[in-house]
């Protein structure tokens, strides 16, 4: 294995990546090199969305991107969304609405829902379905997740 060294901007910090093989995906490096285990791998093909992160504000599957290719870009993972023990409104709504079962898809879905609500303050049900359709959940049948996203949208509107 080669011992390339590079740095990534993750959750507002510059993190050194040592002893990495240059062929490693962003997902692998986040998890195995930087210890950010919240991003999950379930398909390795960009089909399930469990590994979703924000790179320069854009939602993408970290399993499809080489880590070394993300040098110089701002990466936000589930760990960067809110401090540990202080879930944000999207995260709390998932808990309160029963949108979490096994929880494996959940970090990716939180990222996707967060990105959706940043773009659109009042998504319709069909918009929610379309915008989150890149994230597969095998447990819930999606109903409670839609309710969670809608409840956040309603709460944010009434707060402004």
């Amino acid at each position: 294995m080669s011992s390339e060294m590079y740095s990534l901007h993750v959750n507002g910090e510059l993190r050194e990546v040592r002893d990495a093989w240059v062929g490693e995906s962003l997902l692998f490096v986040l998890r195995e090199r930087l210890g950010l285990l919240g991003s999950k791998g379930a398909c390795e093909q960009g089909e399930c969305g469990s590994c979703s992160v924000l790179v320069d504000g854009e939602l993408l599957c970290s399993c499809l991107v080489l880590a070394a290719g993300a040098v110089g870009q701002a990466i936000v993972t589930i760990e960067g969304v809110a401090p540990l023990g202080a879930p944000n409104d999207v995260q709390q709504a998932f808990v309160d609405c029963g949108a979490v079962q096994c929880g494996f898809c959940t970090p990716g879905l939180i990222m996707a829902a967060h990105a959706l609500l940043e773009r659109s303050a009042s998504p319709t049900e069909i918009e929610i379905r379309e915008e989150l359709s890149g994230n597969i959940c095998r447990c819930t049948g999606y109903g409670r997740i839609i309710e969670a996203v809608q409840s956040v949208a309603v709460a944010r509107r009434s707060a402004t």
Partner: protein
Amino acid sequence: MSATGVASETTTRGGLGDNVVRPDGVAKVQGSFAFSGDLTADGFLWGATLRSPHPYARIVRIDASGAWAIDGVECVLTASDVPGRATYGLISHDQPVFAHEYVRFEGEPIAAVAADHPETCRRALAAIVVEYEVLAPLTDAERAIDGSHPPIHPDGNVLRHQRIVRGDQSIVGPITVEGTYELGMQDQAFLGLEAALALPDPGGEGVELFVATQWLHEDRKQIAACLDLPEEKVRLTLGGVGGAFGAREDISLQVHCCLLALRSGRPVRMAYSRQESFRGHVHRHPGKVWMRHHADASGHIRRIEARFVLDGGAYASTSSAVLVNAITHTQGPYKCDNATVDGWAARTNNLPCGAMRGFGVVQACFAHEAQMDKLAAAVGIDPVEIRLRNAMETGDHLITGQVIESVAPVARAIRETAALPLPDEPVGGHDGDPMRLPGGAGLTADRGHIRRGIGWGVSIKNLMYSEGFDDYSTARVRLADGVASVKFATVEVGQGFVTIAGQIARSVLGVDDVVLETIDTKIGSAGSTSASRQTWMSGGAIDGACRLVRERLFENVAAAHDLDAVQLAIDGTDVVDTLGTLRVAVAEATAGVVIDETFEYHHRPTEDLDENGQGNCHTAFAFVAQRAVVDVDPELGLVKVVQIATAQDVGRALNPMSVVGQIEGGIAQGLGLAVMEEIVQVDGHVRNASFTDYLLPTFLDMPDVVISLIEEPDPMAPMGAKGVGEPPCIAATPAIVAAIRDAIGKDISRVPVRPGDICLTEVG
């Protein structure tokens, strides 16, 4: 109850019946919950598995020296390295830890390696030379059971044959309907791939395994036998489980991971890829079911004839139990006194099959519900009326002779479902939005061509294990200073048992604080998280342990206040004297006192079936009715499921929000089998082992779900509550397919329904 607005009923007390949120919920939404694939240890190695590229072949030679020569490789294992029993299995141990002499399915493990990096593992596996004599695979289950193919395994090609013969065999007609129904192989497709971390004891005297499984103690038993270690030297702790649905009931990487750790003397992590997972666990049995119903002129069932052939694949797993579940549910939730059923589970060179949500009843229900619709048409009544006329009640018999003692609100479920509102969405969707058309935004469906159909699925499902198996559960409860600690080995796979566990303790003991201890093998077995059984069985164990603790608490309080313990009760978080004025907080009453009790819950005994398939083989039953509404483009063969309405017999909803989650999730998997999901095999080779090619329901595929919970507490159930996980998954498939038939007037008899099944022949 509508599926929406559930969460608003959340309360803070958190007892039984409340919409309590998950104790692991915040960790899961923040990404800090540790799944088994997230676990690591200092100095660990990666483990990986070499798998057969052939469905059936003789192994001529294995040369692993090339793998040993690679820098970073610390261990290479083949069949000759297994120190104990060379095979494992849940019911019979017929599956090799590593293939020896023969490989019997594509993907069968042959060797395992441990190395410093996944990429090193990949190169090491590629460097292992295996010389095969490739053989023609046996892939036709009918050939496996007709004796025309030589045995592909020393145990033969028939995994089980069981008949059911009951009543008058001479009854014929006057109305007769028949059909042959087929189901493809479905994958559980849990998202959290198989993963484990094994830590060897110094000197290799034992091993500790952190693993995502469904049944810690059964895993331990099988692992210990294969490692030739005493069971107490194999210690299992549950690694966070990313869904299961039956696929984690069998051994996959457990023995490999432990053995790599023991041989290398270092911690070993293993994690399957998705492609590997498709071959690395058992699946839902593909099957063919023939049924002929005889009924009187008004549609009352007089006799059923049936033949089931389930393809068990290369190894036995739970095929024999799946088969018995299938044939004993032939009649569905309907009265029937006379039956002739022949059931076979076959061994082939296809992927091994075993447990998946519904466990044989999915296959039976798809057939009997299609038959009920044919019967309705033959009699000239509608699908609801035929089901009401035949609806089973408490006290009726199964075709095994077993009396249904469970609460059986079948007619009520059908009526309540029928009363739920139909979708207000017009055919083809609202407002001309192409996203609502069958096929979605591909914009290929023509709104003017779309036809809407309505279909029904009603099911009965057994709860807990059957045929004499005592799948007991154990729980320990410790009450000190107003805090209850609860210990169990019950596997949490996402279903929410950890939520229910706290609710039970809070309700029975009057405490606010409940600590759930680590889920591991340091307590007795809880049985498997399967068969819709844990709320009943492990819930019963916790309830029992809490009651023992409460008795002792009452004794203490009674002694301190010179009262009779029988007049004490829990009210909120206080102990109260029901005949007097004493009121003392549980926290105060337990200050400085430790009460510790363990309870084992057993369900009532069950029996084996005799040669005529007669016997009280099941424990209890749950029922559900579903009505599906679909839009179909008959020219393109595209289907959109618009709505599922359902009334489900839940006994008592201990956590309504959680019950709704089980129902919606179950429906999604039933929808997948109806119109999307199938593992395609050609001559034993898997053609779609990825999420790109194996299609799972997404947000856009799921319909609106309207739910009515039927709460008639079952007197046999510890808290009146029935298991709720499997029934919704069973009824959805036949309901959706019936709706497609209704929309296009064509007899569709196979799932998943493919576009060609709809559009490539004449539409009625």
